[in-house]
């Protein structure tokens, strides 16, 4: 058994805590963007994921993702040796105790599920949502994590995804698209005013996401080493650069740079750098940020062009950002930064690009199809949407019997 390094362990313990903290951050980020009558239901989508996904992860998720790949299905899902986290206590992964690894990874499972919820905010029954993310986490997230990080087929092919560009962002965005399509538009979409009800809350959420993302990306080095430092640097610079490109475009197109634009751009940059963080240098990170920020700025208008109501722009930001990031990883990756990585287009290797593309397409297809099926099935069995009148009153009251603010 390899030795535990206390420095690495300290870092991943803290990184796991940071990634957990991203989910309350997301609750704020999303919660501030909806109308005040839905602030709690939107918040609850994220917060509840911390409960349900964690338990599922402990029971089966972890083993599906990180169980052995030797079995006949090993390219697609892990073996069931770690059901109920069996065998985890006392074991070591790399230089850290396996419980730490299992929890760090479990936090990714939570936030990924929570990200989806922006697509159907303000109009889904809580019960339907609960069933959906429980099943989605088992059927989509854990297998995907196995594909990319657990020894599955994408990992074997050599696609690079440092911290979850495909597994987290593209997967959640594809599910979000399915959700937006199947659940349908919010009542009043196109006519009513869906102005965000609390932007300071959203900006705080973005701040927490940025903070937590250091755990997410740098922590994905699984050690407190040079690589973690590089990933930290790339993460920070991409977020900053994307904020600037988003704001510049906004200023150009609408005459004003907005606070929501700054927050959205930063998140876009964080998404874009996620697959690349440990494979690129600082200037490449800035380039990735600038490009992702700009493309996500245009990405959020996709929903208008294609006519779906992705309420909080999961597709426009996480889908577009994740895809752009995965492809730009194929452009900017270099073994000069990370020997365990690969060279990309700029370093003269075009083949990585193909692997990245395969990863993107496979993830989209897998997540979209299963998500679509899940939504349809749940709709048939218990119904996805509340009554019209309930939607109008707001889900806080109709689904949770609560009121957000009594100021």
């Amino acid at each position, binding site marked *: 058994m390899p030795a535990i390094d206390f420095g690495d362990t300290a870092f991943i313990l803290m990184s796991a805590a940071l990634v957990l903290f991203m989910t309350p951050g997301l609750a704020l980020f999303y919660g501030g963007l909806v109308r005040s009558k839905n602030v709690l239901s939107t918040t609850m989508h994220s917060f509840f994921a911390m409960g349900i996904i964690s338990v599922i992860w402990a029971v089966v998720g972890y083993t599906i993702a990180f169980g052995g790949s030797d079995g006949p299905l090993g390219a697609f899902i892990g073996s069931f040796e770690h059901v109920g986290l069996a065998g985890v206590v006392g074991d070591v992964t790399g230089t850290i105790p396996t419980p730490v690894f299992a929890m760090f990874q479990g936090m990714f499972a939570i936030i990924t599920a929570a990200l989806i919820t922006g697509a159907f905010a303000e109009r889904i029954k809580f019960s339907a949502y609960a069933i959906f993310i429980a099943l989605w986490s088992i059927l989509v997230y854990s297998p995907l994590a196995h594909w990319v990080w657990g020894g599955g087929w994408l990992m074997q092919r050599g696609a690079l995804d440092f911290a979850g560009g495909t597994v987290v962002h593209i997967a959640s965005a594809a599910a979000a698209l399915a959700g937006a399509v199947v659940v349908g538009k919010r009542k009043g979409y196109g006519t009513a005013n869906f102005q965000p009800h609390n932007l300071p809350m959203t900006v705080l959420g973005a701040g927490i996401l940025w903070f937590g993302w250091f755990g997410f990306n740098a922590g994905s080095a699984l050690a407190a080493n040079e690589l973690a430092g590089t990933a930290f640097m790339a993460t920070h610079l991409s977020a900053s650069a994307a904020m600037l490109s988003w704001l510049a475009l906004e200023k150009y197109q609408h005459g004003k740079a907005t606070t929501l634009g700054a927050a959205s751009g930063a998140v876009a940059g964080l998404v874009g750098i996620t697959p690349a963080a440990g494979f690129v240098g600082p200037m490449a990170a800035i380039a990735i940020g600038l490009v992702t920020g700009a493309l996500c700025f245009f990405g959020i208008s996709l929903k208008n062009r294609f006519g779906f109501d992705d309420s909080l722009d999961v597709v426009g930001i996480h889908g577009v950002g994740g895809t752009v990031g995965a492809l730009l990883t194929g452009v900017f990756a270099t073994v000069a930064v990370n020997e365990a990585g690969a060279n990309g287009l700029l370093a003269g290797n075009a083949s990585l690009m193909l692997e990245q593309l395969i990863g993107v397409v496979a993830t989209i297809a897998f997540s979209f199809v299963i998500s679509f099926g899940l939504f349809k099935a749940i709709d048939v069995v218990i119904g996805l949407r509340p009554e019209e009148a309930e939607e109008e009153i707001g889900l806080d009251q109709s689904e949770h*019997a609560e009121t957000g603010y009594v100021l």
Partner: protein
Amino acid sequence: MKKIEAIIKPHRLEDVKDALNKLGVAGLTAYEVKGYGRQKGHTEVYRGAEYTVDFRPKVKIEVVVDDDLAKQVEDAIIETARTGKIGDGKIFTYDCEAAVRIRTGERGPEAL
């Protein structure tokens, strides 16, 4: 002049405003109120304690118009605010004795 007060469902405000605008009403004032009426309230639960909330969010519109216009304004509000479900609200009409535009000091219907 008449002052017309309408208590309506919040999401009807924009439409009502547009309808009045079409009638040539140049201005109006609106604010959020809590309405109690036939439309029942709801129950909320906080850590097991149940609270009954009897009041429902409504919007109140106030518009002062020339006597001639009053009937049309009333009709326009009825038409645009009506959803047919309980709690659609009421329209009350009062006499308004005088109106002044603060900026210019204009008085009476001119001030509107």
